[in-house]
């Protein structure tokens, strides 16, 4: 059924259609609308049977999901930002134990300074946590990816994070096609646990493993993600045949066939990137884009195939790996090992800074002239940064960065300091 709906609500309805049995969640912006709607649906019996646990922290949310999954129930939670970091220990535990939990990450920046707006610092920080990571471009894809995520998670027995841009997607009203229950049921079979806490057949889960076997158990997580590499496109294909639309998969190419310049990015920013590409194409510029949908597992071969013929690759990412630069770009470079081309990393949109088509056009034009530096910061206010760096270099206490910068910009509230 097509309807105009908020992204969070659409995702909640998709999760509901997957018949989760235990939902445990702790509120954090911009994830709240998802779990609020799920709470409503559990109360009204629209999701039944289902237990909704209002836990005291994200650490508990993930821990309860671990218990629920190990006890044989389909378990779901959602979080963002600081919440994701607060559950990190449990994230590694869930993947290490091989529990097929599905979690939405409503992507949001990580403090300090505290900031509720969108970037990918949160989920990217967990790229090596053993979770499969899928990045949605649109609300429709976010909705669809959740349905696929349960299939993928349960088939390879690994947890899956569906990452969607906070506010940009979660709070945007768009027309989406909500599948009906019969369709989802035909696509997603009931959860059958690979390991189960059951008095009829008692097992020990989570034993202490020493050097003699730890390596092998860890390797299994990698091997299962490699299986997922085959499974993700297969599930996307199966999804297309049941639901009649393309969603998910490992990556998506946009006008890359003859492209000399290829932009690589994740999530909703692809929309703006494609608009900029269309304009440049009209001017005869051979430029295209690759949307990375699966960041873990990282599709090395597919990325290599998609980018290998280009003259230059611009990886635009909403994450800053402090001290080196890019995260996704490092992975893209691994895929391009041995291939000679110009590679540029562009950090953009941190803490919700708008990534405008105008800025992208300037960036891509500069890239076409190979005028970019290896590491670039899109629309960074360098004069402000330089002034604060000068203060820091001077001797003596210079005060908090935020206050200094706000004062430079002229925000009234900081003047009393």
């Amino acid at each position, binding site marked *: 059924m097509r309807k105009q709906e908020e992204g969070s609500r659409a995702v909640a309805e998709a999760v509901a259609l997957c018949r989760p049995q235990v939902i445990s969640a702790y509120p954090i912006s911009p994830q709240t609308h998802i779990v609020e709607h799920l709470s409503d649906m559990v109360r009204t019996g629209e999701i039944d049977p289902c237990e909704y646990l209002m836990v005291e922290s994200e650490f508990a949310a993930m821990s309860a999901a671990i218990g629920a999954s*190990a006890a044989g129930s389909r378990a779901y939670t959602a979080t963002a930002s600081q919440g994701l970091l607060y559950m990190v220990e449990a994230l590694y535990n869930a993947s290490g134990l091989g529990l097929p939990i599905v979690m939405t990450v409503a992507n949001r920046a990580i403090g300090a300074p505290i900031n509720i707006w969108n970037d990918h610092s949160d989920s990217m920080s967990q790229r090596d946590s053993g979770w499969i990571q899928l990045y949605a471009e649109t609300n429709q894809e976010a909705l669809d990816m959740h349905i696929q995520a349960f299939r993928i998670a349960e088939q390879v027995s690994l947890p899956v994070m569906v990452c969607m841009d906070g506010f940009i997607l979660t709070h945007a009203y768009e027309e989406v096609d909500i599948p009906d229950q019969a369709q989802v049921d035909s696509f997603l079979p009931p959860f059958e646990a690979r390991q189960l806490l059951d008095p009829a057949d*008692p097992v020990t889960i989570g034993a202490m493993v020493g050097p003699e076997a730890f390596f092998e158990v860890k390797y299994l997580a990698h091997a299962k993600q490699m299986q997922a590499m085959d499974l993700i496109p297969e599930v996307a294909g199966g999804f297309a045949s049941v639901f009649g639309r393309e969603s998910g998969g490992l990556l998506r190419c946009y006008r890359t066939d003859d492209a000399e310049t290829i932009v690589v990015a994740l999530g909703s920013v692809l929309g703006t990137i494609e608009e900029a590409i269309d304009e440049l194409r009209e001017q005869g510029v051979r430029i295209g884009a690759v949307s990375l949908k699966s960041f873990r597992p990282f599709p090395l071969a597919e990325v290599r195939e998609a980018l290998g013929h280009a003259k230059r690759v611009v990886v635009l990412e909403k994450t800053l790996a402090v001290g080196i630069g890019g995260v996704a770009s490092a992975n893209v470079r691994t895929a391009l090992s041995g291939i000679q081309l110009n590679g540029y990393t562009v950090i953009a949109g941190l803490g919700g800074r708008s990534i405008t088509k105008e800025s992208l056009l300037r960036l891509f034009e500069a890239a076409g002239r190979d005028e970019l530096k290896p590491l670039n910061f899109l629309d960074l206010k360098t004069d402000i940064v330089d002034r604060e760096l000068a203060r820091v270099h001077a001797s003596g206490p210079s005060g908090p960065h935020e206050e200094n910068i706000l004062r430079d910009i002229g925000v009234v509230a900081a003047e009393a300091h």
Partner: protein
Amino acid sequence: MPDPPEQEVKLYQAGTFVVGNRLLDPDERSVQARTERSNTLTSGHRACQGCGEALGARYTLDAAMRATDGQLVATNATGCLEVFSTPYPESSWQLPWIHSLFGNAPAVASGVAAALRAQGREEVRVIGQGGDGGTLDIGFACLSGMFERNDDVLFVCYDNEAYMNTGVQRSSATPPAARTSNTKPLGGQPGNVFGKGKNAPLIAMAHEIPYVATATVAELRDLEAKVERAMQIRGARYLHVFVPCPLGWGSASHDTIRLARLVKETGLFPVFEAEDGEVTGVSKIRRRVPVEEYLKLQKRYAHLFGDPPNTKVIAQIQARADRNIRNFGLLPEDGEGADLPGEAGDIAGASPGAPDPVEEAEGETNLMRLLASTPPGPQ
């Protein structure tokens, strides 16, 4: 340190309720003395000789298994119990058991209980367990959350009063003056400081959960009875079991039961039950003893018994015991410690497992009175 005095060996025959007596009528035997005990934590694990936690866990889980007809799932915090029971590829657990992390055993248990409820399998019950660090410190938020949601979980804390698994560091359950690896009696400090720490059973009661109880591994019929009572109740329940640790306390392995008995007989560890935030029963002191009798058996207090002994600190510890005795009404009605027949054995009383009813305080609830007058710290 001189050798501890020889313990008198007593042989029990039919007619006593000693916990291991298999000569009683089958119905009168403890769970552990029954032929059909489930050996939930079975032999071959790697706990130290004289480990109070292994003993407490075995009795607790066997009693819980019996009370639930074997329909039981356990979650476990990281710690000694987890490490000594599951060194891969071995496991001592004969029930479905999961260890996730140090600080999340109560939340994992909540998740298991929610899953079972969603599956309509509420006949399967859930028990969470951890040591004092995993329960009172790193797992405390998850424990409190489980309590306030009143999730159908019995959480059991095996309290040996420090982080034994990592090498005997202080926890918030470490008693004043105790020496641990990071509360050594150095620089004029008496060991662990006074006036800090937390009283988990009282905090559990403040959540007004259906059932809270304390027990020791000296009174094992009492422990079994409390587990059985706990499993008759739905909702969040908390059982705090005092388990001596020979390694961490510097006590003799054969003194584990004696120490668990003495901690109660001194008044340092009140043994009681509470329902819905109200104390419903206390185990009275049978033969009151001064705290020195308990302290002297442990090297963690050796610095108090030099030449001359640190009488000031010992008096402070005695004062804590005395406060417990007053606050919980631990002495029998006549105010004298009364010897009961067969008192030297691990007998909870002529009527196994039934604590005496507590005296009602006038004008205020038990919890209010306890919270107002009990010093912080587990003892």
